[in-house]
């Protein structure tokens, strides 16, 4: 139960970050930033996927993970692990884009990377423990 509560808490944290970046995207405002590169990252081509801001996709993914955290059973654990691993892999790709082609670091993206990595680790743990 504690594991699933932790999963839900992390999903809320991730959804908060993603929701803020989604707001920044649609409100056309500069994100609060201490690393100096947030706006460059947020306005780069890597910030959109098929016309949708990746932050919005993050909100959807974190919402799904939050919901799955409260569902018992192997199917929910498998679904959550799959979503979390897709998320962490995509976060890794975006981190590469920041360090390489974009040449700027966004603190919000780094925060998201940390949350998605922790979520993936917890989801894998849950899957291996689920009965």
């Amino acid at each position, binding site marked *: 139960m504690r594991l699933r509560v932790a999963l839900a808490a992390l999903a809320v944290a991730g959804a908060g970050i993603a929701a803020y970046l989604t707001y920044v995207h649609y409100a056309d405002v500069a994100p609060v930033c201490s690393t100096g590169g947030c706006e460059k990252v947020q306005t780069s081509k890597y910030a959109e996927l098929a016309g949708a801001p990746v932050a919005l996709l993050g909100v959807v993914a974190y919402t799904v993970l939050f919901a799955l955290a409260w569902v018992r059973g192997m199917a929910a654990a498998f679904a959550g692990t799959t979503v979390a*691993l897709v998320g962490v892999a995509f976060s890794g790709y975006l981190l590469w884009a920041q360090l390489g082609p974009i040449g700027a670091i966004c603190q919000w993206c780094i925060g998201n990377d940390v949350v998605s990595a922790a979520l993936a680790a917890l989801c894998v743990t849950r899957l291996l423990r689920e009965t």
Partner: protein
Amino acid sequence: MRSVTTGSYGGKPRAPLHHVCMARNARLLLLLAAIGVAVVVVGAVVLVGGGGGNGNAATSAPGSDASSATSRVAKRPLLAGIPQRGLTLGRAAAPATLIEFADPQCPYCAQWSNETFPAVVREFVKPGKVRLEFRGLHFLGPDSEKGLRAVLAAGLQNRAWNMIEQLYARQGAENSGWVNDDTLREAGSAAGIDVEKMMAQRYSARVSAQIVANDNLASQLGVRGTPTFALVRPPANPQPLEVGSLLPGDFTATLSAALGA
């Protein structure tokens, strides 16, 4: 025949060992399946729609990630509703004017335009605190002059800032011929100006006179590189604005301090 068990605690029998092993194997298979799905999904995204197909992005000069900048400029009507007159952007009644000396080919000018200019517009120009004035220079070579003439011609239509923003978003390698008619027409079109009029006025006497005036002012203020900034607070004469960093936060802090002084 009795099953081998993993032992018992408190009188509660545990699952038979072979059941435990099967369950563990099933979980590992599910984990491998999840990893496989993640690899396939993200791999497909990277290959098809993740924006990773533009090799220029990885090798371009600072701030010249052309496709991302072009996309940003096209998507964001940053300058919509802000008055422009000639080479100025912002309200004529603004208490201060920030002059930018810039070369269309200078990569750091493009970086400033792509990254910092939006913050300056939002924090200073839109609220009416500052008016911007573009003073283009052309010391980097032939493409600089071609680009500058187009920007100054766009200024005759009161769209100089739209044009320079679009040009910086398309900046290419120095004197590689990137400032050609196609680039200018594309940038002009994106800037929302009468392209043919701009092309025709590039070599007009007014544009040539403006280039001379810009050179003279730069010489008068001792401009040695671009981008260089000067702040005008009438009735005082233009004063060079010493900028330690072109990053948005640092630049706006410097400008705030200068305006408050």
